[in-house]
């Protein structure tokens, strides 16, 4: 494990990922450089097929790069064994997916405690309750996922992701399957994690409203970063940039 401490929670350098589909090679990422500093909220946007999901998977160590480098909390992912990668994910990375975030057999509290249980660390019930309280679900601790609404499930997932105090929290379309009100709650929780707990969040989304909660927005297109916006931006501005990018890309398509 090589440590390169430089203040970034996560760094991607010249990240390239190609897949072979049949005999064709498909390039999902073509040399992306992206960093997220500690206590930064980065949103990754882009049309479907732009490579944003691949970016997230590679950044989180769920998928491997073809070339380039990923460093999470100072640890290079390249060359880590499956086991060490798993331990790294468990200890320094949190996940929130679009759907199916919780194990159906476990209660909300057990789901929150799961990463610690898997790490064979002691779980203090009061800490679990506190974590659930933070997402406003202290009273649902004993409920199973099937008894919770979609928004509630997502809040449990956030509580679980934050419970291990990860260096970075990856969220993949966390509001994609939720109604507007629930989505707002989830985004507020992510924002609060950055503001109050100084966590780093990298979120993939196609929703300008969601991206407006981030400190910085980057746009991907055809596996490259095609635009970026630093500092808090409004939903309208993000939406306009997105629309402009899609226009050029479709023009590009047409010209080809």
């Amino acid at each position, binding site marked *: 494990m090589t440590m390169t401490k430089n203040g970034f929670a996560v760094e991607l350098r010249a990240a390239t990922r190609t897949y072979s589909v049949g005999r064709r090679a498909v390039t999902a990422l073509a040399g992306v450089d992206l960093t997220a500093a500690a206590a930064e909220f980065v949103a990754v946007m882009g049309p479907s097929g732009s490579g944003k*999901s691949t970016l997230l*998977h590679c950044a989180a160590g*769920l*998928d491997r790069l073809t070339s380039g480098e990923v460093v999470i909390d100072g640890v290079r992912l390249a060359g880590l064994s*499956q*086991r060490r990668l*798993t*331990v790294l*994910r*468990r*200890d320094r990375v949190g*996940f929130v*997916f679009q759907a*199916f*975030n*919780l*194990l*159906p*057999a*476990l209660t909300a509290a*057990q789901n929150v405690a*799961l*990463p610690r*249980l*898997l*790490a064979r660390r002691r779980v203090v019930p009061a800490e679990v309750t506190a974590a659930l309280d933070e997402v406003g679900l202290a009273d649902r601790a004993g409920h*199973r996922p*099937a008894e919770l*609404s979609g928004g509630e499930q997502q809040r449990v997932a956030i509580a*679980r992701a934050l419970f*291990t105090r990860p260096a970075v929290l990856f969220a*993949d379309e966390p509001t994609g399957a939720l109604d507007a009100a629930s989505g707002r709650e989830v985004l507020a929780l992510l924002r609060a994690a950055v503001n109050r707990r100084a966590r780093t969040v990298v979120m993939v989304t196609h929703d300008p409203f969601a991206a407006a909660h981030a400190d910085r927005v980057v746009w991907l297109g055809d596996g490259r970063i095609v635009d970026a916006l630093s500092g808090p931006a409004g939903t309208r501005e993000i939406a306009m940039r997105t629309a402009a990018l899609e226009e050029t890309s479709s023009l590009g398509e047409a010209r080809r």
Partner: protein
Amino acid sequence: MRLAWQTVRHRRAAFAGTFVAIAAGVALVSGAGSLAASSRPQAPDRYDASTVAVHSPSVGQDEYGNPEYRSWTTPEAVRIASGLRAVPGVRAAVADPVFYVQRIAAGRPAGDAEASLRDGHSWPAAALGGYRLTAGRPPVRRGEVVAGDPACQGAEPCHGGASPGDLVVPGETVRVLTADGPQTWTVTGTADGPGWYVPADDALRRSSGVRVIGLLVDGDPAAVAQSVRRVVGDRGTVLAGSDRGALEPDAVSRVRWLGAQLLIAMVSLSVFVTVFVVAATCGLGAAQRRRETGLLRAVGATPGQVRRTMVAETLVVGAAAGLTGVPAGALAAPLLAGPLVRAGLEPAGFTVTAQPVAWAAAYILGVVVALAGAVVAAWRSSRVPPLEALRETAAERRAMTPARWLAGVLGAVGGTVLLALLPRVPLTQRTTAGTGAAMLLIGAAALLAPVLIGPLVRAVTWPVRRSATALLVREGTRTAARRTAATAAPALLAVAFTVLLTGMVATIEGVEGTDRAADIPAALVLAPDGAPGLAAAAVRGQPGRSALPTRVLVGHGGATEGLDAAGVDGPDRGAVLTPATAARLGLRRGDDVRLWWADGTAARVPVRAVTRDAPAGLCLPRALVREHDPVALTPVVLLDGAPVPATGARTMSARAYVQIDIDAEGRLVRLFLWVLLGLTAGYAVLAVANTMAMSTAGRRAEFRTLRLAGAAAGQAKLVAVAEALLAVVAGTLLGAVVAAVALTGVRDAVAAELQRAVPLVVPWGAASLVALVCAVAATLASVTPRLVRAETAGSGR
């Protein structure tokens, strides 16, 4: 572990199949184990008062692994017994000669023919069972007898003694059949034990030597046994305590042995099938839970943790199933004792006792089997990448793994090659090789089912290809080849086994009768009628040939071995050997055969001839056999003239005579067959139902989509049922074809062995029954989960 427990509780339906399979397997093993462990050799009741006994020496083992004994000659037995009376603690030492007596009622031998071989005793031996006179006086002269009590107590049912309602009273005479022939005896008294008791010298004259000396002892039997052992030395084996089981008659031990074979077959089959069902269930469950596993991996579970969790889940289920299965089997075992005795698989008086060791073994076996079934699925699960959690659709993974392809193709090739090579296999091993080939082909068909199912389904649904339901069913079945194969495989195995096993038995049985009758040169035979064999008087003066079977011990080199010999009429007092026997014993014409007769007498008999024409391996003069084996009975006389009527004998065709044996054998074979097929079918039903229930429950979303797309509730249900039936039909067809191919191969092998045409008997009835049972199970299982869901639909979101 906690996760495992909670998952099991949460996904009860998914584990139901594993639970039932293991519980059924454990119940079977614990029940069969209780029965087997309860079936210990036991000294007959008539030795109840004799806590120490001496058996004549064993000279080795016979071809079935049972001890081969040499009898004491009468003088030898008398000498040893009188020597033992001087041992402190020995109150009495009684030589126990045994011979054949059967009462004649209404001109025919009455009672259990087999048991009557051991019904004649000497009067002093009655004391060994603690039997006493209930009326009259002991027998003194030859021709006098004490009749056993017909209503004798104890578990052993009474035979030999007068039948109830036909009581004998002291002073009366009674007609009995003995090895010599019918005799009239005077009843001097009655006793409270079973059997017939004649004076000691008469009994010794009638029996073939003596094998047991029973002792009545005072004080500690073990201590007395020690001193007895010093006196007896190598002249016999001293038996006390549990060793007395060795006193059990061979015939009774053979019955136990038969029962044990059935129990062993049941246990091995159910262990094998339980592993199969558990493995299939775990595999299917793991496939259905790929997303969940991926999520676990994403939040930080190592592959080892995933593996351990999966194994722990099955362990929890196995442990709970064992707790259900063990008592179920233990409670069912005593209920089976009666039927087993009636079927001739356990001796009369068999009772089941508590067998904690068997229970514990069954429990442990259940857990081990569960683990064995779970290991492969757990290993595959642990390789699920964390990304799997993000896949929206649980698209069907490749149905065929490389290992499955390899095993399936190897099995198919191996089976085909073996079938093709069958004509070159040595004759004696052809049927075995044929069966082996059949097993390989059946296994290969089950493994390759996912590949074979697609084309088969297309063929079967060809006539109805235009209806919407047919389209859905057909495409669903073909794309989800693995699921379909999981349903089809148990049906395939059950149908194939049924066709193969019953077909083989029926085919072989069909030719066996004519085959064996062909060995008998005479058209008519004189056979026993109600008796275990023909008495000397019945054979004497009959026109025709017969042989008097006896067992002798033959010494060659430094070894002694038991040999079945035949007493035949001959001009001189020498032995005639077949070349094979002569070669084995290292004897040539002019040598002496060193042998011990059944009565323990040592003798040297010169070899008069070595010829292929000898009717048995070792032929000895009939008069000598009769002299040294007074209890020998003739099994059959091959007639070449009109028979003389005799008690306990009847004339019949050679074919009918052979058929008696075949029927007796066939009855047992069929019993074994049906028990094993019943088990196979039962597990197949379990597997089919389980697969259907699990996969239907896992396809809710798919059916919801179907409903939204405009399918009526009935139509959705129809699709599910049709899919299930299609899978069973496909499995049945595959199984029947594979088994029929293998059966034809076996038939050809048998035909070559017998050198004549053998008609193929295909058991369509049994096969259809098994297929029907599978179909019903599949239909019920595919409908039930949805019915349950309809009730709970309101409580969901």
